[in-house]
């Protein structure tokens, strides 16, 4: 600690340069935080996917429906413990910008398959009793300032007219990455008010199996069961289904990796250059330190300490800003329903900042370490 004033004094020597370098770190780590949050938002479906859950969709495409009678045949397949189903509604609340997913769900079985969504018993009972009742995620309720009992009109571009719903229940998640922006309403209401061609059809099935290791066998069994029928199925684990959705939008992972790599490589060059200049312009001072008895290793250490201080302070600043920004939730108004920066990513960002600090300081530090006092003083 007694050498800390020396480290800080050296960093304070060129205040603008230090501030700009800190700024570079802060911006890079802020961007890192955002990219992690965006990646998390895209992969949220994969992250929250239940290991024991499978999804069944029409083999042709997701928008093609499946017959409701499939439910009982699916339940008879060995290993299947519960089945539910849902249909995409695709309505608009007030304005096109107010996007959120709406599903017509089977209220009797939906929670058996999604036990992670917590709903107070009295609210759930009120939902079951009201044919026009709906359940909304806590984030969605907060976003639109809804409260229990509110009447919510949703216009349906696909099924026509304005559908009225009564908010009867609010669900919460048990994990930070749980999607709290969904809107569920009763399948019976959908059947009643929807077009005749949708009667007896559902959008997809979700089922639970007794043993996740048995997923491949169950998957094959289901698809074989409905092979050569008018509605052939494609069954996948929930995680695989979520991953295929992400893939449809392009290789987000690769894109994020590329952007992140370019940013950090640039940061490495900027910081490395700063440290190299900082060492070069005080060659004589480092030589004097050595002359009065400071070891080569100490000089190496002090240059690395400066580099690390920059990375720690700049990194903490950037990650702090990213944390504050993501704490506000989805900045896009519904496109990224789960938008947050998990603690593990904060730690990873900090480790990355430290690594850049070491990497950018190591060459200047070694050149400072190898500096010969006599040569350095001769240059003055």
């Amino acid at each position: 600690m007694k050498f800390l004033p020396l480290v800080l004094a050296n960093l304070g020597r060129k205040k603008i340069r230090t501030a700009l370098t800190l700024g570079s770190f802060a911006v890079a780590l802020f961007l890192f935080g955002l990219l992690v949050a965006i990646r998390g938002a895209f992969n949220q479906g994969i992250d929250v996917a239940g290991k024991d859950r499978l999804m069944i969709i029409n083999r042709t495409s997701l928008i093609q429906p499946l017959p409701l009678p499939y439910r009982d045949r699916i339940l008879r397949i060995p290993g299947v413990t519960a089945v539910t189903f849902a249909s995409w509604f695709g309505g608009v609340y007030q304005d096109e910008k107010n996007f959120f997913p709406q599903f017509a769900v089977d209220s009797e079985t939906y929670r058996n398959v999604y036990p992670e969504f917590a709903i107070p018993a009295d609210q759930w009972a009120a939902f079951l009793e009201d044919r026009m009742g709906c359940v909304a995620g806590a984030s969605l309720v907060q976003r639109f300032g809804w409260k229990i009992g509110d009447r919510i009109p949703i216009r349906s571009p696909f099924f026509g007219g304005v559908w009225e719903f009564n908010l009867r229940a609010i669900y919460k998640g048990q994990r930070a990455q749980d999607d709290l922006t969904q809107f569920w309403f009763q399948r019976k209401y959908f059947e009643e008010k929807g077009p005749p061609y949708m009667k007896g059809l559902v959008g997809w099935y979700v089922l639970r199996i007794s043993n996740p290791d048995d997923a491949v066998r169950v998957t094959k069994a289901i698809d074989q069961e409905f092979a050569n029928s008018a509605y052939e199925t494609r069954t996948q684990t929930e995680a695989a289904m979520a991953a295929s959705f992400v893939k449809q939008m392009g290789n987000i992972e690769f894109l994020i990796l590329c952007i992140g790599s370019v940013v950090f490589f640039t940061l490495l060059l900027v910081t490395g250059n700063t440290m190299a200049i900082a060492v070069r312009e005080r060659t004589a001072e480092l030589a004097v330190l050595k002359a009065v008895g400071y070891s080569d290793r100490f000089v190496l250490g002090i240059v690395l300490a400066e580099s690390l201080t920059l990375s720690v302070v700049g990194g903490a600043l950037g990650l702090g800003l990213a944390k504050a920004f993501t704490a506000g939730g989805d900045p896009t108004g519904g496109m990224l329903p789960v938008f947050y920066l998990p603690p593990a990513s904060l730690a990873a960002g900090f480790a990355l900042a430290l690594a850049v600090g070491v990497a950018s300081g190591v060459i200047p530090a070694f050149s400072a370490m190898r500096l010969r006092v006599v040569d350095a003083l001769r240059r003055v």
Partner: protein
Amino acid sequence: MVRLGRGAANKGLIVARDLDKKYVRGSEEIHVLQGLNLDVDAGEYVAFMGPSGSGKTTLLNLLGGLDVPSAGTITVAGDEITHLSRRRLTEWRARHVGFIFQMYNLLPVLTAFRNVELPLLLTHLSKAERRQHVETALKVVGLQDRMAHYPRQLSGGQLQRVAIARAIVADPTFLLCDEPTGDLDRKSAGEILDLLDVLVRDHGKTVLMVTHDPRAAERAQVTLHLEKGSLVESEAVPA
């Protein structure tokens, strides 16, 4: 007293024997010092003079452990330093040598106090003990009221005083001064030379000084002339 010849016994504080230093530049070998012998006793004040390129600074660097000779030995207070590793030599410098440079070489980002404290940070002294030592050193050089000043706030003479305080604060075995008045006006130079006199006379310090300035050399007890890498003349001044 200073002896230039090769004595029978190594009794001086600083003893150099058959000292050679050569540099290789391309295919050319440049002999800076050749077969130099020197004995300096404790408490002596020695000035080295000579034309540019005569090897004065090289000799000072060798005696201060900043460089190693091509041949020969240097013994200080009974310890031969010529074969010490780089790390050991650094530790030895911290204990035994105080350096005073022509350009002061203070750290501009540190106050006078912090500059003087630098050598003490390598010791096990407590913060309070370090403060006491620094205050004493700055008092010796007459700058106890400038402790919180940064180098940019001090005059040339004051900067060199701070450098002297830094050189003496750890109570080294001897002081090496490389043109300590070379960058100062006449008045300030005189004050610095007075200060070196005080260090030798009142504090018993051993001082070896390289200078071009005859007035500075006059203050030393002995002036040695270096020519083409050899000490050729000795001039003792009665105490």
